[in-house]
């Protein structure tokens, strides 16, 4: 049961971390995947690893012209698009009292505005059976000390799916949010170290951080027809962090 046989997917933030794990998983389930990211070296390495069913387009989701090039490439090679995993995001801490306008703009330009245009510009290529997955965060529910802009931007992302489920009524396109908790991406492992990973893991009932492949498995569920009666939902893959 290769659930994504013949499907075409776009994954933003696809060169590393959760996006890369999802690209690998989608391809294993039969999909053809376009990954989109800002760093050419990371894109090249990931596409080489993913094999013949992957393409890379370099760009930033906060740049509309870059998104236009992404979807032009999808249209040219595949004609239509079935799955959008709008996963690219950014988030750095800045304590209340120190927050700058630039910090807020940068966070919201990527996480909110970038996500909106990632989806809006994909729609002309999508149709019945399409699935849009937005990467939220447990921080969108719980907040996160020091992460004002990031947490608020992810709460906004969760809300986008509610509006779009209504806006997309009648199109057969579903839209859901996948909200990871603390995930042990290469970047996170490097930043946190062994002790930091343990500390984040200890916050959850499961007592560990997620492996990116666990987030990817949930993304594959939302991308596939196994979730055909789900829209506007939030699927938390957070080890229980924001659930109790």
């Amino acid at each position, binding site marked *: *049961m290769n*659930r994504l046989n013949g499907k075409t997917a776009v994954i933003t933030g696809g060169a590393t971390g959760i996006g890369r794990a999802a690209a690998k998983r989608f391809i294993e389930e039969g999909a053809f995947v376009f990954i989109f990211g800002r760093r050419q070296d990371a894109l090249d390495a990931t596409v080489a690893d993913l094999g013949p069913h992957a393409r890379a387009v370099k760009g930033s989701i906060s740049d509309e012209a870059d998104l236009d090039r992404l979807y032009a490439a999808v249209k040219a090679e595949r004609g239509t698009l079935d799955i959008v995993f709008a996963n690219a995001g950014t988030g750095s801490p800045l304590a209340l009292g120190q927050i700058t306008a630039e910090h807020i703009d940068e966070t919201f330009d990527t996480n909110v505005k970038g996500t909106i245009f990632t989806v809006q510009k994909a729609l002309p290529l999508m149709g019945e059976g399409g699935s849009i997955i937005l990467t939220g965060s447990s921080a969108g529910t719980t907040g996160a000390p020091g992460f004002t802009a990031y947490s608020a931007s992810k709460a906004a992302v969760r809300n986008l799916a509610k509006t779009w489920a209504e806006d997309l009524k*009648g199109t057969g396109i*579903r839209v859901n949010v996948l909200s990871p908790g603390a995930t042990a991406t290469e970047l996170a492992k490097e930043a946190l170290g062994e002790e930091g990973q343990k500390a984040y893991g200890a916050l959850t*009932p499961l007592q560990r951080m997620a492996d990116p492949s666990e*987030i990817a498995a949930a993304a594959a569920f939302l991308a596939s027809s196994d979730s055909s009666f*789900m829209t506007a*939902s939030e699927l938390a893959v957070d080890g229980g962090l924001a659930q109790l």
Partner: protein
Amino acid sequence: MNNHSEQKLAGKIAVITGGSSGIGLATAKRFVQEGAHVVITGRREKELKDAAALIGSNVTTVVGDVSRLDDLDQLYAVVKEKHGHIDILFANAGAGTIAPLEVATEAHFDQTFDVNVKGMFFSVQKALPLFKDGGSIILTSSVSNVLGLPGFSAYAASKAAVRNFARAWTLELKDRKIRVNSLSPGPIDTPALETTTGLTAKQAKEAAAQFATQVPMGRRGVPDEIASAVAFLASDESTYITGIDLAVDGGMAQV
């Protein structure tokens, strides 16, 4: 390369309450397709036998009512004798008759909570001695756990209780690595609307049409669409998911 086409529940032992029709039956079929052996329970012997015939293989039936603790003991005695352990429990049996606040009787209230709350509580408690560490428990809640539905107040409150069971049990069972999640279906096209709510066939039809207008997807779901979500929560596809309420409701309670 991983092979994701293989069966996701190969060799697993699953217990499904309310397994003779609707969501429970669809899930039993899906679990068996995914390689599990299922033990289904329900109150009506004939329906249970018919369900087993539909499922075909790798199915055991035990007649029982989840609100009767003796029946649960009997269920798990059979599971123990036949399989020795449990990997997955889908605590799905539920009841919901329509009764507006002004006219609802004590019997209506008690029956709703006896099945949906007490029955679920003991379905899980009594399964624990047989449960394998690392297993998965899925509780059937409902969109009504976060919605006000006129005429369904006892039902909706009982389903909110179920959602909260998942929270406490996530913590109580964390050392055994047993994951606990609830799943909240929206309106699903099952026989229950006609057979258990007290509606006439005509009223049930009207209610179904009314429900569909309240769902952003514009239709009721079918049992297989719940079964696929239950299979996801039951399997190793959801190893980092615990304590959640998974809404599979066409968007009904989300917007």
